[in-house]
């Protein structure tokens, strides 16, 4: 298993290089550049644009820019060698002048900890949302399956369908209206994210879709498993219903659920543009979306690579969890 894990981790290298190459080609194919700002205001003049392009190496051939991003290159202005992605350098932001992408995403504001960095915020919120999806979604799915075609099942299905079909911005404004405007339980304008009460609404909105999907998947997997022979055998042996459900049925039903939770985790912890826009949440989702419009190439590359890395790691974690859930599954050495 250790050899398998090491081999999978090494496979991440070509995966990330491929993701980098595809992202680089796609983003550089789009017209416009980081200095193309609002046309209704003074534009960056030619001399300054030339200066900026030279400083950031955008005046070099494409292949060289890609090489510089991955391996490194000498800055033509400062004459300093700048190591690239292989040194963990995600590149300079073109819009947030003076800052590197890793600084923007991982460095906390002054006098704060890593958990108050943009990635730290997203990681915490994503983790909480996933936990909510698991802790609520799986029990709902189990109960719905065990009470199939009853009012409990219908309510659970309604809940799950709502979660999948209601857009998050609608849910967000609905929750704000109820809990902030009417009940005054929380403020809409949050100025202190250290207070846990402010996290519930963004967590609920972010995790609701995953929760609903988890509930639906758990229900259908449970329904499939509960008709299996080994379940009938377990019951025939006289096992307690609780043992049948939790030891024999749930363990097997969880395999497809775990499969989707891996990529879901990556999606949740990399932030959400909608959540961050509506709750003024200082995560990394906005950085990603804004960077595309601003043609902030390094930021696009950096956030894409982090997302790819998280998906890959999450999938690997899922593979490991499989082994514990199903003894028939073996990770090849």
């Amino acid at each position, binding site marked *: 298993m250790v050899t398998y894990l090491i081999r999978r981790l090494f496979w991440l290298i070509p995966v990330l290089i491929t993701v980098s190459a595809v992202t680089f080609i796609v983003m550089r194919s789009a*017209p416009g550049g980081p200095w193309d700002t609002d046309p209704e205001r003074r534009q960056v003049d030619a001399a300054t644009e030339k200066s900026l392009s030279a400083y950031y190496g955008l005046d070099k051939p494409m292949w060289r820019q890609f090489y510089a991003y991955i391996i490194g290159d000498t800055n033509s202005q400062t004459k300093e060698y700048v190591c690239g992605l292989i040194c963990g350098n995600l590149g300079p932001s073109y819009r947030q*002048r003076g800052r590197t992408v890793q600084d923007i995403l991982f460095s906390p504001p002054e006098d704060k900890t890593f958990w108050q960095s943009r990635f730290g915020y997203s990681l915490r919120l994503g983790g909480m949302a996933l936990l909510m999806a698991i802790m609520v979604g799986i029990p709902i799915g189990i109960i719905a399956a065990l009470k199939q075609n009853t009012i409990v099942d219908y309510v659970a299905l309604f809940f799950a369908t709502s979660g999948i079909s209601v857009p998050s911005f609608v849910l967000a404004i609905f929750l704000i209206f109820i809990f902030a405007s009417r009940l005054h339980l929380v403020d809409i304008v949050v100025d202190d994210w250290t*207070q846990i009460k402010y996290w519930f609404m963004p967590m609920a909105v972010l995790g609701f879709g995953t929760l609903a999907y988890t509930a639906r998947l758990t229900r259908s997997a449970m329904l499939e498993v509960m008709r299996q022979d080994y379940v009938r055998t377990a019951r025939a042996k006289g096992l307690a219903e609780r043992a049948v459900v939790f030891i024999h049925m749930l363990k097997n039903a969880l395999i497809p659920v775990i499969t989707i939770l891996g990529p879901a985790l990556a999606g949740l912890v990399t932030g959400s543009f909608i959540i961050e826009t*509506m709750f*003024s949440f200082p995560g990394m989702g906005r950085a990603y979306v804004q960077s595309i419009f601003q043609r902030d190439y390094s930021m696009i590359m950096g956030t894409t690579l982090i997302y790819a890395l998280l998906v890959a790691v999450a999938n690997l974690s899922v593979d490991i969890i499989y082994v514990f859930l199903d003894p028939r599954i073996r990770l090849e050495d």
Partner: protein
Amino acid sequence: MRKLNVLLSLFVLASLVLTACGGGAPAEPQTVVQTVIVEGTPQVVTAVPPTEEKEAVLRVNTGTYPDVIDPQKSSFVNEIAHLNKVYMGLTTLNGKLETVPGAAESWTFNDDATQLTFTLKPDSVYSDGSVLNAKRFEYAFQRNIDPATAGEYASITDEIVGAPEWRGADTAAEGYDAEAFKAALGVKASHADGSACADYEDTACNTLTLNFSKPAPYFATIAGIWVGYPAKEENIAEGGDIWWTSSKYQIGNGPFIWKSVDPFVKSVFVPNPNYAGEAIPTYRLEFSYITDSAVAFEAYRNNEFDVIGSAAEDLPVIDADADLAAQHVKYAGSCTIKIQYSFFPTWGGKPNPFSDKKVREAFALAFDAEAWTHDVDGDLSLPTWTWIPPGYPGYDTNTPLHFDPEAAKAALAAASEPFNSAEKLNALGLKMAFADSARNRQRHEWIAAQYKEILGVDLALDPVEPTTYTAIQKDPDTYPLLSRGGWCADYADPQNWLSVYWRTGTFADRWGYSNPEFDALVDEADTTIDPAKRAELYSQAQQVLLNDIPGAFGYNSLNHYLVKPWVKGYQTTPQDGTYPGDVTPWTITIDTSMLP
């Protein structure tokens, strides 16, 4: 053990629930009813504790969090809204957008306006009490021009001797000498007698002299904009490239001190007791960064904001509510938006109909600016038929064109061959590009429908991704035949509207507009010192421009905000970036007796 776990879990859950419920509406003063014994007789006494005096705070939602808050690198409105709270330039603007003393108490031009000399106010200090002398401003201008800074507005000081040369220098070239460029620059700090200043502690260093390569009588206004704000060199050096991210390095001379910043969440500014401007503000200023207008509106209604920008989608609710309607403040903004024609002789290999003035006239006359502002913009813009917007020096209501469908048809019929009918224009396949968004689709469909209805012209709409739209507008080879665009003021001077935008060699090159008569007039105005004569020359230049019909002037932007009734004394100017009173924040007061 299991019971203990259950108990602990319940405890944690209860704590979370309690924490979640702990906030909410501010506690109101409670009436305390006590039974006391006075000389043996029990009496019920009702005591109301004295109410705490509420703090004067102005809570503003500014929307997007700035990308960069560095005086010599910033360029966006929301960035400048932060900078002008912390810093003040040599000059500043009053509520009428007149250039008035800022850090400088006075300034003088030489006879031909090629030299501008500022004298700083005596005993000028930063908010931390340290000396603010002319050398600080010398550094600000040098840093703006230095190609290593590469600020997006660096070219705005190109009138200074040596500025274009240094800005355009190749810093990677062999023998590049920044100190030599700096020495040749027409920016010099000195004592009143002309002798050199020692350092940043030199309190007698109160004179800054700017030498220009051509007469620049408008430069006193430019000297007041953010590129000349005196950020401290040592703070920039100590903080490195990211110095501006920390409020501790943002020590300025503006009306406020930047007390704290939590990126994307909140910035807090408190009054600067050392502010040398008109008056020291009397309130704490808080900026929040909610970009979703529906959420900001809900927060405003919940009394969590004192000022927000109103959004078109909220108008029905605002108009239906008498209180909200009374709090809705609307006034002219800083932009003029037009339908811009391409002036090049050909377009896409075909003859360009807009090279014919009569076609331009037809399209200008057929644009119903009033209907646009009402039907499309929900009265959140102002119709215009001229270039410089109201509130700015040079605003001129004397315009040759207004909406007139019949005159539009007649103008098209009077155009030259092969552009003199809708059928002939349709055969050419007219196209209008725009930055794609749901809102813009609606807007441009309205424009196309109107031209179809009035002129019978089929306008193909070409939605383009927003950044791509900007890119194609920068290149004359890709400039669209028709597009919607305009200009927002950098500073309040006609030079910024006419010379910077329409003169040959400026923005106008992108769509091919060039008129030697116009160029001659603005060139003369730019170098004329007498304010009255200068204004007259700009007025003539604007008339030449309007007579050329370079575009269908459509509308001016409108500043529109919801302002709580306890926010008093704000002065509105078109230049307000994020809230009413943005330009002159010291005039605002908060009536704490009205706070809920």
